[in-house]
């Protein structure tokens, strides 16, 4: 039996990064907002407690703060001709769970996408001709870099990002990223203090004529009070950052930047440990009536609402749309359908340089502390003579020396025994690692749909992920690996190893929780699920916020852009949608 509850103005599904931003903005507008969150309540003192936050086994290996596959998982395969099997454990990507979402245990690399990343199809076609991207489904976002700039600014100031601007209002700034688009002002905080490895990496990069700069970081270089009046502390370089909550209030998350204000508002409520099963549509299928959710006792509830905002993390947003019948599911054979198309990821590779005479103290680290070289990212370099589009940031961001997972050894070392032990002691402190984070461009056979076989705990189909790295992206990654090899050689050391990305995406080793697409924004309702304000084309009183909206992924972490889109959607709802609720903001 379903219990029917009193109606709310707005229901937000998921109280992570984007849910917290939307809730705070819309409660400011006086709306009665309810967030429904699948996982538990989490706060710093209790859940990221300084007495035991630094527990690698519990948080890093067993992943206590993450979504557990028994609750929801995905089936995966590399191509439509294979049989998808369930991820029995997560590996390659690790979705979040509980208040704060994946923002609790992210690293904090906070990027802006460039206008050429957003306006990509038009830009690449103009510069190289349409044939260059004939094999790819790259699409324009329907929004320009200049339009997004104020929203990036709001997210960066909310979060207290530490960094160095490269371009303020068109004027290049020493020490920043010369390839970034113009920004209206510098970051709220200066860069973090730099550890040894990124310092050497930057010197090597500079000597090759590249332009290294401090990675923009949500680990705070100084104490900070954000525009909501919430105080945050300076990062202590604890080295238990990604996969962990921060015990110092130093890593930007919903907990440290929004919730202390949001939770005090009488017109906001969160229901935790409650999973939204689907959005309920009216008989026409064109308007949402509310959502159905189930709590951990198995009780089902219908929560009526005028406006439903999905903030459940990109992948979960897409599955909820599929289970609710919002938008037609994409079919790669016909190329029709909008929900599930343009699923993209991240095309990464790694480099290690082994030294004899250096001590990097790898445990002195933070999730986003390091240096980046963007000379080969996006379209910062001329692809005219090259056989690919896209690029990668080259990052030296050594995040930790946690020894269960981080124990580099020279190639050929045994995995156990006395020889292994000796090699481990030799290399633990003296290895410099860096990596490339590459773009991932949409192609026809990379998509999401519902699995025909495997079911969740309520008997509903799991979402199926069909993905492999497109040839374009492998060529891109190889090109960037050649640049990484130049850097590695310049760094010297006794030996270096470049781990190149190969086809056959492997779901086991961790790569990145940057799953993008599936409910993409755009200008054409036949090819996108949401409009430029992240409003569903099919059901206009549903907004879908998250990296699900990215038509393809850039060589950058997504959350700066997710945060910017959250502010953009909030403004659109407040300034336009509420004047005429239920109406599309863009006519199809």
């Amino acid at each position: 039996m379903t219990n029917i509850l009193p109606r709310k103005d707005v229901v937000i599904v998921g109280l992570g990064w984007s849910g917290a931003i939307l809730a705070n903005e819309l409660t400011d507008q006086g709306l009665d907002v309810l967030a429904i969150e699948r996982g538990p309540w989490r706060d710093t003192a209790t859940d990221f407690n300084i007495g035991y936050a630094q527990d690698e086994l519990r948080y890093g290996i067993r992943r206590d703060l993450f979504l557990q596959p028994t609750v929801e998982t995905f089936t995966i395969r590399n191509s439509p001709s294979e049989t998808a099997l369930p991820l029995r454990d997560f590996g390659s990507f690790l979705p979040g769970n509980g208040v704060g979402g994946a923002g609790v245990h992210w690293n904090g690399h906070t990027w802006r996408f460039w206008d050429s990343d957003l306006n990509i199809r038009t830009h690449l076609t103009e510069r190289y001709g349409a044939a260059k991207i004939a094999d790819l489904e790259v699409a324009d976002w329907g929004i320009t870099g200049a339009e997004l700039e104020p929203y990036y600014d709001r997210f960066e100031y909310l979060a207290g990002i530490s960094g160095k601007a490269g371009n303020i209002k068109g004027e290049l700034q020493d020490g920043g990223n010369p390839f970034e688009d113009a920004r209206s002002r510098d970051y709220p905080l200066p860069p973090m203090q730099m550890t040894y490895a990124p310092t050497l990496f930057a010197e090597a990069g500079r000597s090759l004529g590249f332009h290294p700069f401090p990675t923009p970081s949500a680990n705070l270089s100084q104490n900070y009070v954000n525009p909501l009046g919430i105080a945050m502390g300076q990062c202590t370089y604890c080295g238990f950052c990604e996969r962990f909550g921060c015990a110092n209030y130093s890593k930007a998350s919903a907990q440290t930047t929004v919730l202390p204000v949001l939770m005090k508002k009488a017109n906001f409520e969160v229901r935790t440990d409650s999973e939204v099963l689907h959005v309920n549509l009216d008989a026409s299928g064109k308007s949402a009536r509310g959502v159905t959710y189930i709590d951990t006792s198995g009780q089902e509830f219908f929560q009526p609402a005028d406006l439903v905002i999905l903030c459940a993390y990109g992948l979960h947003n897409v599955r909820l749309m599929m289970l609710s019948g919002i938008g037609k599911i994409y079919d790669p054979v016909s190329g029709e359908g909008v929900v599930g198309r343009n699923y993209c990821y991240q095309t990464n590779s790694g480099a290690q340089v082994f030294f004899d005479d250096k001590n990097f103290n790898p445990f002195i680290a933070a999730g986003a502390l390091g240096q980046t070289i963007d000379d080969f990212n996006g379209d910062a370099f001329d692809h005219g003579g090259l056989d690919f589009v896209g690029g990668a940031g080259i990052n030296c961001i050594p995040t930790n020396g946690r020894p269960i997972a981080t124990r580099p050894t020279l190639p050929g070392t045994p995995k156990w025994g006395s020889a292994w032990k000796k090699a481990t002691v030799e290399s633990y402190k003296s290895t410099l690692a860096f990596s490339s984070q590459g773009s991932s461009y949409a192609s026809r056979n990379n998509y999401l749909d519902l699995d025909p076989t495997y079911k969740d705990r309520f008997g509903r189909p799991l979402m199926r992920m069909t993905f492999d790295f497109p040839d374009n992206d492998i060529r891109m990654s190889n090109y960037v690996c050649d640049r990484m090899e130049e850097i590695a050689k310049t760094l010297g050391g006794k030996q270096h190893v470049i781990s190149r990305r190969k086809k056959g995406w492997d779901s086991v080793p961790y790569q990145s929780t940057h799953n993008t697409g599936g409910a993409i924004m755009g200008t054409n309702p036949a090819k996108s699920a949401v409009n430029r304000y992240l409003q569903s084309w099919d059901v206009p009183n549903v907004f879908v916020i998250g990296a699900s909206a990215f038509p393809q992924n850039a060589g950058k972490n997504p959350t700066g852009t997710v945060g910017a889109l959250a502010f953009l959607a909030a403004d659109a709802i407040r300034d336009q949608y509420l004047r005429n609720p239920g109406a599309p903001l863009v006519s199809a």
Partner: protein
Amino acid sequence: MSYRSSVRLNRRHFLSSVAIFLAAGTSASFARSISGSLPWQALASDPPIQVVPGGWYFFTPQEAATVEAIVDRIIPADELSIGGKEAGCAVYIDRQLTGPFGSSSRLYTKGPFLPGLPTQGYQGEANPAQRYRAGLAAMDAFLKQRDGKSFVELQPAEQDAFLTEMEAGKIALPNGIKSAGFFGLVLQNTMEGFFADPIYGGNKDMVSWRMIGFPGARYDYRDHVTKHNEPYPQSPVSISGRPEWLGKGI
């Protein structure tokens, strides 16, 4: 690791400033409605529980002896450290197998169970507890048949040779058990025990941390960030402190 300690449940009863949304049912529910304040409470926490050595919770004495012998070959006693057995790796594994890890209670365990590609990850039906039970029995059955001895009766060099063959998948264990897969599981768990915080039963006196120079649970390195290439001067601490603090000098 029983993280879901009663503290969390009790916490609900302290939430006086917070309306508790009681589901219209009687079964236990953690579902909460929170509005109007941050529901933080002093002393509400969810600390890990210290593993106390002594006795076996999962292994039979015979299994325990085999696992102790294996972890002592994976991490042999030498000039760099004590061996895996003395470090507590077998105790660590024993306790892990009785918790959520051993039963895969957090994982997706619904069928059908089909053989997959390596890129699709472990697709077996058996959970780690079952894999240890079956794997250890299969190892001894194989060795009894081949050498007339169990694993613990082999000389260390013979044990190393056998484990090396297991690792390479060259041993055809009975009951279709994949030797490389089972060895990989034991290797992973042994390393976890050796390098995890000592509260979990392995890494006795932070032996592995002292060996590689990892300072453990220290949480503030601000004074050393820019001291490039200089050794970090402090010795490690664990979540439960240091032997020195307990008057047990090392």
